[in-house]
Each structure stands twice: as structure tokens, then as C-alpha cells.
């Protein structure tokens, strides 16, 4: 499988990465090189093979249903590029 310019634009948008028109062709080449490389997986017979979901066999742990953290709003917003009091600021989302 290979991607065309329209697909590159669509993937970039899905990934929320702005790309300039003059980058598209280069990116298309790189993505297609990677897709050509992984293409060899199609020759493996995977009939009846379970996809791996956990590399180490383990039972999902559950912790006690208690509050173990919190009450630190100053720390939570400490690294925000834009904040007001204990809120993250973003451009207007809803008109």
C-alpha cells in the first residue's frame, strides 16, 4: 500500500501536525518508504494467531478504591503555557 498527497494531508490533520504544501511530497516519499518496509509482514501466515495484548503474562491489578493523591492544583497547572488561577487557558472552543 502507498499513500498519495491527499492521504498525507489527511494523516497530518488527524495527527494534529500542520504541514506546508512544499513538505507534502517529501513526507509522502518517507511514509511510503516505511510502508514498503513493513509490507513484508503480509507474507507471514497469522491464521489463528492471537494478537499480543500483554508481553508479560499478568492479571490486571486493581488498587483500592481510595483517593491517594490530589489537592495540589498549583502543581497541576505549574507547567501550563497559559493559565488563570487554577484553569488551563485555550482559544475559544464554543461560540
Amino acid at each position, binding site marked *: *500500500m502507498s*499513500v498519495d498527497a491527499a*492521504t*498525507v494531508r489527511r*494523516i*497530518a*490533520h*488527524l*495527527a*494534529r*501536525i*500542520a*504541514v506546508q504544501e512544499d513538505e507534502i511530497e517529501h*513526507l509522502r516519499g*518517507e*511514509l511510503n*518508504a*516505511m*510502508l514498503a*518496509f*513493513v*509490507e*513484508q*509482514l*503480509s507474507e*507471514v501466515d*497469522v491464521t489463528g*494467531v*492471537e*494478537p*499480543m*495484548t*500483554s*508481553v*508479560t503474562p*499478568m492479571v*490486571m*491489578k486493581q*488498587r483500592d478504591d481510595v483517593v491517594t493523591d490530589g489537592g*495540589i492544583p498549583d*502543581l497541576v*497547572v*505549574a*507547567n*501550563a*503555557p*497559559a493559565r488563570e488561577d487554577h484553569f*488551563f487557558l*485555550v*482559544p*475559544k*472552543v464554543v461560540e
Partner: protein
Amino acid sequence: MSRESATSLTALTLAEARDGLRRRDFSSRELTEAHLAAMAAARVLNAYVLETPDKALAMADASDARLTAGEGGPLEGLPLGIKDMFATAGVRTTACSKILETFVPVYESTVSSQLWRDGAVMLGKLNNDEFAMGSSNETSRFGPVISPWRRTGDTAAIVPGGSSGGSAAAVAAGLCLGATGTDTGGSIRQPAAFAGIVGVKPTYGRCSRWGIVAFASSLDQAGPFARSVRDGAILLRSMAGHDPKDTTSVDRPVPDYEAAIGRSVKGMRIGIPKEYRVDGMPEEIEALWARGAAWLKAAGAEMVEVSLPHTKYALPAYYIVAPAEASSNLARYDGVRFGVRVPGDDIVEMYERTRAAGFGPEVRRRVMIGTYVLSAGYYDAYYLRAQQVRTLIKRDFEDCFAAGVDAILTPATPSAAFGVGEKVHGDPVEMYLNDIFTVTVNMAGLPGIAVPGGLDAQGLPLGLQLIGRPFDEETLFSLAAVVEQEAGRLTPARWW
């Protein structure tokens, strides 16, 4: 102290420094000052992206007080470097990405907190490929790391490997007694091999991933870099252990890995996988591999040819699984909660501009390929199939161990280190081939160790890799110690 004795302090192994501190032959402050001086004199290597001398000296003084009082943990007073993928409270942590250039964590990663718990001293943060995506440390936003190694009679800059290139270069050059790394496809073992030192990638689940910048969560694992096998064992004991904050961290006791050094390997069965004899493999790598097998045989181990038939599919499967998980993990860098923001007219434009400006080309490429293979209509063809292939890769190893093989011996890399700039402009896939011998281990969640095997004809280090059963790092330390005894320790000639 005289310059000569300061230099000799940075030439000690971690175990020698530990024993010297306990005897009070020198103080942690003296040891730490010697390392800070070595770091200042080696900035041309670009190994550290942040030096923390004030913190280091304060920690050293606290260690000296504890040592004087006859207290102190297993790593008391020993100066270490920390890969910039580990969150360090109050100390800038960037994953060597522009998007995190302003990030100062308010928490400490579990692994680094255990090092401080045991008394270690932090010298600073070490360079790596951006978000650990790379095999040469050339994708860092702080620029490439230069290896302390050079080809004989040549001054050209050599890469230290990646992604933990700063860790490897710093340990090899005596800029710390040991360092942390992370290994997603070979990022500890490949740079350890390139730098002529020891690198350990533990079993998945052995070390907590909490507080480590996530790349590909089902593959990422922290481990140590060290100048000797013993040092690697000492560091892993402190780094490993159960952490309730990481649900994939395994709740089982941490053995005394150091006790495995010097243990007999007589009667062990060592698998030599025929699929690792790849086309175009340099003769020197073949010779290194044969040498490693001969050393282990002389120590009483038995070599058996084994087959891992799905080996050639590990790298392509990795380049689906790792970018897919990365595209998901890196979704958090949106310019809202931390890191850099580039304004836009609406929130989507803000996200898109922030991520375009904040991520370098390799990270953008991998996030995009990951987004593609997870997108509607392609998930089954790519991601699901890759995870099925992963099951087959793991099964290959399980069959091998079930047949009575104790560990597997391979070269760590398909070649010695290459020059800075030599591979960056080519096909990205060519760079990815560096991890051909290491990536299978991550796909199967197994432990692996890289240990120096000697120098090539150009004077650059070559490494051997030993792969073990899940949670049997001890056998790897025993075997690696035999290799180390035969190959000797490698030290670069100082030119910087």
C-alpha cells in the same frame, strides 16, 4: 586534590568507588567534584543537556554525613547521570524535544527516586534522541552527542549510538560512574555496544515506567549503563522493583544481581540463532560472535544452534507497533497543560502549529505513520497483524527456552559505530536496521545485556548481546561477566 588523583577518581568503577567511600579513602564530595570537573572539560561531547552541580554537591554532602554516621544506602555518595527521559522533580526534563523545553516536573520518576533513596548523587541530565526516537543521538533538539571513541588515526566525529547516546558517551568518557537509559528497540544495548560499555535492558515489568516520558508503552523499559558488568548489576538492583503506580510493573522480589557475578556457567546451554547470520554481515561481526561463543564454551557452557524463524519480521512489526503507540502517547503534547504553545486562530490550529513547531522531523514522521496504521480501515491490516507477528516472535523464544536453552548469544549490532552525519540524510529504514539484533528482545519482553567483545580493525568497540528468560537477569550477569573477563574492559583514548 591534584588533577592526577581527581582523574583517577573518575576512572574507578562504581563498585570500586563504593568500596573506597565505605573505607573513607575519599569523600563523596571529592568524588562528585572530580566528576563535575570531568564534565566541564568534556562539553565538546555534548553528553549532558543540563548539569546540576549545586544539587550534586548538596547530595554529596548529605551522603558524606550519612557515611560518617556509619549509615548509607547501597549507592551512597555515587554520582550518576540521568537520561533526559526521566522526570526529575524541580529539574528541567525535556526528552530532548523542543516541545518540552520549558518543562520542569513537579514529581520524580520511580526509577530515579529509587536511586536517590539508595544514596546516589545526581550530576545532571543526559542527551538522547528526541523522545528516544533514533539510533545515533542525532535527532536531539540539543544537537548530536559525539562519541569519546574515534577511529584509529582519524579525528572524524563518531556517533555514540542512540537513543541513550548521552548516557553511553558519559559513562564511557568517565563523566559519571553509571547512568540510566531507556530501551524501546535497542536504545540501551546499541549505544552500550558502540561506546564499549555494559548496557542492561531488563525484562518488561522489572523497572517501573512511572515518570518516564512514554514512547511505546508496551516496549519501553528502563535499565542501567555501566563500565563493568558488576556495576550494571549493582545499579539494576536499585532501579528494579514493584511500583503500584505502574500497572505493568511486576510484583516479585528483586534478587541480589551482584551475587550472580562469578557464578559458574558450566553446563549452561547457550543458543546461537542461525537467523541472526544476516546477509552482508561484516566478517568482523562474525568473528566477534565466534569469539564470544568460544569464551563461554571455555567456561564450560554448551553452544547449541537454535532457530528463531520470525526474526526478520521483528523490525517491520516494530515499525508499526512503536509508532502506533507513540502517536497515542504523544497526543498529550497539545500546548495546553505543559510545554511550548504556538498560538492559532482556533484550538485545532493551535494544536497543529504547536506540534509542527515542537516536534522534530523524525518524531513527526513516526507520529504520522502511527496515526496512519491506527486509522479507520487500516487497523487490521497493520496494527493487528503486527501484534499477531509479535505473538509469533515471542513464541520462537519460548520454544527455544522450553527446549532447555538458558540464554541466547548474538552480536549486539550489525556493525561498529558510524560517523556523525553519515546516515541522517539517507533512507530512514537504513538507520532503523541498526536495531535488527536488539528489537526482537523488546517485542518479546525479554531481558538483554550488551557487553564489550573487543575492538574492530578501525579501533572502534564491538558488543555482544545475551538474551535471557523472562526475569532471569541473573544468568545474563553471570554469562556477561565471563565475556568481560576474556574481552577486558575498553577505555577510549582521551582526545577532548
